[in-house]
C-alpha cells in the first residue's frame, strides 16, 4: 500500500490566511497581550531587516542575508523558548536570535565585527552557523550534555531546506534520535536554496516526513502562521524536557528577497509574480487580520508600536556605528586559551611592523 504523505504530514495551521482561527482549541490560550507581543516583535524584526538591507545599499555594512517573509517562523519559535534554553541559529535567523537574545549586536557581524557573534549576557546563543547543516550535530551534542547533567534546558537548532541534503542533517538527527536528546530541529523551508528550488533539492513531498527515518515526531506547519510556530515549538520543547527526545518541525515559508544582498533573485524566479502571490499570505498581514477580527486591534496602539520599533532599530544602528574600532589584537588572542609560540611571534612581528619598528 502506498502511504499518503500529505495526509500523514498535513500543513498545520492554527490561523488561516484571513486571520481566522482554524483550530478553535487554541482560542483560550490567545489573548490580546500575546497577540500584541507577537505583532510588535514581527513588525520590529521586519523593520530591522529592511534597515539592514538599506544599510548595505548605503555601504554602511557588508553583505547581508535578509529574512523578510520568515518573521513568523522565527519569532514564534524563539518566543516559545525558556530563558536558559540553547539556540543554534544560521546566518538568516536574526529574527530568532534577536527575539530570544533581546540584543542587536549581531548586526555588527555583517560589518565584519567578531563582536556580533558574541552571545548576549547570560544567553546560550551560538554564533550563526555559516556552513550548512553542520550546527545540527552540535545541537545534538549540546542536548546530550543537557541530558547527561539532568538539566531541564532544551535546544533549538535552525536550518533551511537546502540543509536537508547535507550529510550532517542526517547525522545530527540520527544522533539526537539514538540518544533521545532534548532538541528541536526547526526547519524553515523557504523553498529556495539560493537559486535552487525545493523540487530540485529533494524528491520527497515534505521535509517533515524525513522524521520517519529517525522515529521522531515530524510536524509540518504553516510557517507564516505565528500561532502554529509558537504552539508547535512549545509542544516540541515540552516533549524534549519530558525526556521524549527530539522533534523535527518543518515551517513552510517564503523569503521575499534575495539570498543575500549579493544575489539577484530575478535571475532564477519571477519575483513580481511570486511575491504578489506570497504577500497574500504575509505573516504580519495575517496577524493583523486576526487582531481586527477579534477586537484586539487598536489603530493608536499600532501607530505607537511603529514609532517605538523605529526608535529601537535606530538605537541598534547607533550602537553599531558608535562601536569602538576593531582591535587588531583580536586577530591573535583567541585561537587558544594561551597563545602558542608561533602565534605570539607572529603577533609581535606584526604589531612591530604596524608601529614602524624595523
Amino acid at each position, binding site marked *: 500500500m502506498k502511504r499518503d504523505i500529505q495526509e500523514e504530514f498535513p500543513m498545520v495551521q492554527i490561523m488561516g490566511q484571513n486571520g481566522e482561527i482554524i483550530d478553535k482549541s487554541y482560542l483560550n490560550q490567545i489573548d490580546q497581550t500575546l497577540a500584541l507581543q507577537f505583532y510588535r516583535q514581527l513588525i520590529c524584526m521586519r523593520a530591522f531587516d529592511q534597515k539592514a538591507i538599506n544599510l548595505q545599499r548605503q555601504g554602511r555594512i557588508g553583505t547581508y542575508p535578509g529574512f523578510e517573509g520568515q518573521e513568523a517562523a522565527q519569532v514564534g519559535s524563539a518566543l516559545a523558548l525558556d530563558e536558559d534554553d540553547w539556540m543554534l541559529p544560521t546566518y538568516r535567523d536574526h529574527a530568532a536570535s534577536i527575539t530570544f537574545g533581546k540584543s542587536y549586536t549581531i548586526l555588527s557581524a555583517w560589518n565584519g565585527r567578531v563582536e556580533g557573534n558574541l552571545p548576549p549576557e547570560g544567553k546560550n546563543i551560538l554564533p550563526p552557523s555559516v556552513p550548512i547543516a553542520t550546527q545540527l550535530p552540535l545541537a545534538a551534542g549540546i542536548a*546530550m550534555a543537557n541530558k547527561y547533567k539532568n538539566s531541564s534546558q532544551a535546544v533549538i537548532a535552525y536550518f533551511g531546506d537546502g540543509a536537508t541534503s547535507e550529510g550532517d542533517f542526517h547525522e545530527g538527527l540520527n544522533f539526537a534520535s539514538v540518544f533521545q536528546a532534548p532538541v528541536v530541529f526547526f526547519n524553515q523551508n523557504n523553498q529556495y536554496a539560493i537559486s535552487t528550488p525545493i523540487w530540485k533539492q529533494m524528491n520527497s513531498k515534505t521535509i517533515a516526513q524525513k522524521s520517519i527515518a529517525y522515529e521522531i515526531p515530524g510536524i509540518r506547519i504553516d510557517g507564516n502562521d505565528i500561532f502554529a510556530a509558537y504552539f508547535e515549538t512549545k509542544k516540541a520543547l515540552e516533549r524534549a524536557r519530558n525526556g521524549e527526545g527530539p522533534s523535527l518541525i518543518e515551517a513552510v515559508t517564503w523569503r521575499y528577497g534575495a539570498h543575500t544582498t549579493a544575489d539577484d533573485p530575478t535571475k532564477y524566479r519571477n519575483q513580481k509574480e511570486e511575491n504578489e502571490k506570497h504577500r497574500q499570505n504575509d505573516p504580519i498581514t495575517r496577524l493583523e487580520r486576526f487582531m481586527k477580527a477579534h477586537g484586539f486591534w487598536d489603530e493608536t496602539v499600532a501607530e505607537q508600536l511603529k514609532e517605538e520599533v523605529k526608535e529601537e532599530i535606530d538605537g541598534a544602528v547607533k550602537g553599531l556605528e558608535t562601536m569602538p574600532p576593531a582591535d587588531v589584537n583580536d586577530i591573535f588572542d583567541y585561537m587558544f586559551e594561551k597563545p602558542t609560540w608561533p602565534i605570539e611571534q607572529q603577533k609581535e612581528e606584526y604589531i612591530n611592523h604596524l608601529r614602524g619598528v624595523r
Partner: protein
Amino acid sequence: MISITKTKQLTLIQAITDGMRTMLNEKEEVVVLGEDVGKNGGVFRATDGLQEEFGEKRVFDTPLSESGIIGSSIGMAINGLLPVAEIQFLGFIYPAYEQIMTHATRMRYRTKGAFTVPLVIRAPYGAGVRAPEIHSDSMEALFTHMPGIKVVCPSNPHDAKGLLISAIEDPDPVLFLEPLRLYRAVRGDVPEEKYEIEIGKGKYLREGDDATVIAWGAMVPIAMKAAEQAAEKGITCDVIDLRTLYPIDKAIIAESVQKTGRCVVVHEAPATGGLGNDIISIVNDTSFLYMKSPIERVTGADVHVPFWALEEHNIPTPARVLDAIHKVINF
C-alpha cells in the same frame, strides 16, 4: 619523606586505556565515545573494560558517523563536558574534517572565548601492519596546518598516558595520534598515578655530537635504530622525539642543531606539505648559520599509502635514515 611512585609495565595501548581511566576517575565531565568503544572495548581494545567500570553513561558506543561523533562531541564540549572521541582510524576522519575545521577549531576564535571546545580526538594512524586500504594514513599535516588545534603523538607508554591526560586537561581541541604499529610493540614503566607530559615539549632519546635526527610516533624506533647503527661506525646523533606536532618544540630543535650543525627529519607522511618542512623552517629561522649541511628529509613519497604488499617501500627504514645521516655528514 621519600615518595615512591608506583609503576606498572604497560604496552602503549594499555597506557592509553590507563590515561582514560585516570581521567574518568578524576572528572565527572569526562566521557568516552566512538564506534565500538563500549562493550567491544574498541577495535584495538583501547577502551577495554572502561564501559564495564564506568557505565554506559560515561563510555558509550555511537552510530557509525564520524561527522556525528565529532559534531556532537563539539556540542558536548561547548556545554561543559570533556569528551574523548575515538575515530577508529585516522584515515576515517575525513567526514569529520568539516566539523573540526569549521567548528572545533573556530568556536573560541569566533566568539572571543565565550564558547570553547575542550575536546580530545583520539585516532590510530600510520602504516606497517598490513591493514586494508585507508587504514594506514598518516595525514598529521592536514591538522597541524589547521589553526586552532593542537596535535600530539606519543611513541612510548609513559608519554602516551601523560600526553593523553594533558590533552584531556587542555582547554582547547587536541588531536591525539596513536602509532598503531607500536600499540603492542613496546612495554614500559608507567606510573599508576596521574601525571602530565607538557604539550609542546620534545624529548632527547639519545645524545650525540654529529647530527640531529628528529622523529615522532612510529618513526621513533626507526630513527633510534639508525642512530645505533651510526654509533657503531663512530657517528653519534641526538635523537629527538618531537611528541607534539603543533606547537613544535622550537627550543629543543634549535639547541640540538646548534650543537650538531646537521639534521635529518623522518616522517612517514608525504614529503610535500609535510611537517618536515616546518622543522626545516624552524632550523632556518633559529640556526641557519650553525648549519654545516642542508637538512635531509626521509619521508613517504607524494603518494598514498600503497597496498600493503608494497607498503614497506614507502615507510622510512633504518637503512634510509642511516643513508641520510651519512649524507648530512659527508656533504
